[in-house]
């Protein structure tokens, strides 16, 4: 039977390493929950649920990445970090991964810690770090926001892919020998392309939300976008 596997399947990484990452992921998510709690209110809770549901939907949309026979799909860490911040964001991606593993048979349940570590924790953390950094230097325009979302997406996807490579190094069930380098290279190559797709989706989504409801884009911290740079005559001195 044809199976749809978007995440790490059972048997790919050995039990002890999977268990260690399950413990790590559980601890990290507990930390996120504690931090997320302070910012949650009656308004943000449904918005965060929407972000999780949206990520679930877009993850179903595998897009071709112009390498023969390979597709990619959104991971969602950058989108979540942009819209609801790092703590709630990581939890949103984790909710998606848990639903996929428990209901859709996607990603082994024993592998959940590995998948959560790569996509929910690493992916969101890297994205948020970049978002915080970039939004200090780019203009607060739709373009600046789009560039931020794009760059954060590409790198967050690449780091999530390298998370898997590291896990495979620790507990991969097939001894690849010299082939490990090739696995690393294929994972990196395909995920740069997937990251570009993720970047386009994330930038489009975030800019759309920012135009409709800037108050719902966490990265904007409650301030709307400024219009694209139009030279403003300096009148301060004259007044």
């Amino acid at each position, binding site marked *: 039977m044809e199976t749809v596997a978007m995440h790490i399947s059972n048997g790919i990484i050995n039990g002890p390493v999977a268990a260690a990452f399950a413990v790590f992921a559980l601890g990290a998510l507990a930390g996120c929950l504690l931090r997320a709690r302070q910012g949650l209110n009656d308004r943000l809770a449904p918005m965060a649920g929407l972000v999780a549901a949206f990520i679930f939907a877009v993850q179903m949309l595998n897009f071709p990445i112009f390498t023969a026979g390979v597709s990619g799909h959104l991971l969602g860490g950058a989108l979540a970090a942009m819209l609801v911040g790092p703590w709630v964001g990581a939890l949103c991606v984790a909710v998606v991964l848990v639903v996929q593993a428990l209901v859709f048979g996607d990603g082994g349940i*024993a592998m959940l810690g590995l998948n959560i570590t790569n996509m929910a924790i690493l992916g969101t953390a890297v994205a948020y770090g970049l978002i915080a950094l970039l939004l200090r230097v780019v203009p607060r325009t739709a373009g600046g926001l789009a560039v931020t979302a794009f760059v954060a997406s590409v790198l967050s996807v690449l780091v999530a892919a390298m998370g898997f490579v590291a896990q495979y190094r620790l507990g991969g069930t097939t001894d690849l020998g010299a082939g490990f380098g090739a696995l690393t290279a294929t994972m990196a190559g395909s995920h740069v392309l997937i990251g570009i797709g993720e970047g386009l989706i994330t930038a489009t989504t975030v800019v759309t939300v920012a135009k409709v409801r800037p108050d719902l884009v966490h990265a904007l911290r409650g301030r709307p976008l400024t219009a694209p740079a139009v030279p403003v005559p300096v009148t301060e001195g004259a007044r």
Partner: protein
Amino acid sequence: MSKQHWGFVLGGLLVALLLAGVVSNFASSQPDGLDSSLRDGCVFDAEENVIGGSCPAQAAREHELGDSPLADYGIRGIGNDFLSTGLSGVAGVLLTFAVGGGLFRLVRPRDGGRPDGEVAGTARATAAGLKG
């Protein structure tokens, strides 16, 4: 919570339902970046069985709940692929929204949470503006 805010959430949900319920049928069915990396080195037949070579994907074992009625993004018992994929997507979006929204509602502070950053930010900005 305002009517406008629920409007946004419902609108967003509608978009997600359309993506998962309809657009999902036009998604690429090629293996994704992870899966294809793990299949490197193996030769597959049309039924996805390995007919030659060796690759990490061969070590894959059955999913614990592989016979879930929604396994592999379809609904067991529905023969029409379009309907099966679409309905499983709709179910997934609603379930994820319920689990996510429910979790975040459950863990929010008891008093319903602090007012928004937006409100707090505006208040701060106004205060600063008045002072200056």
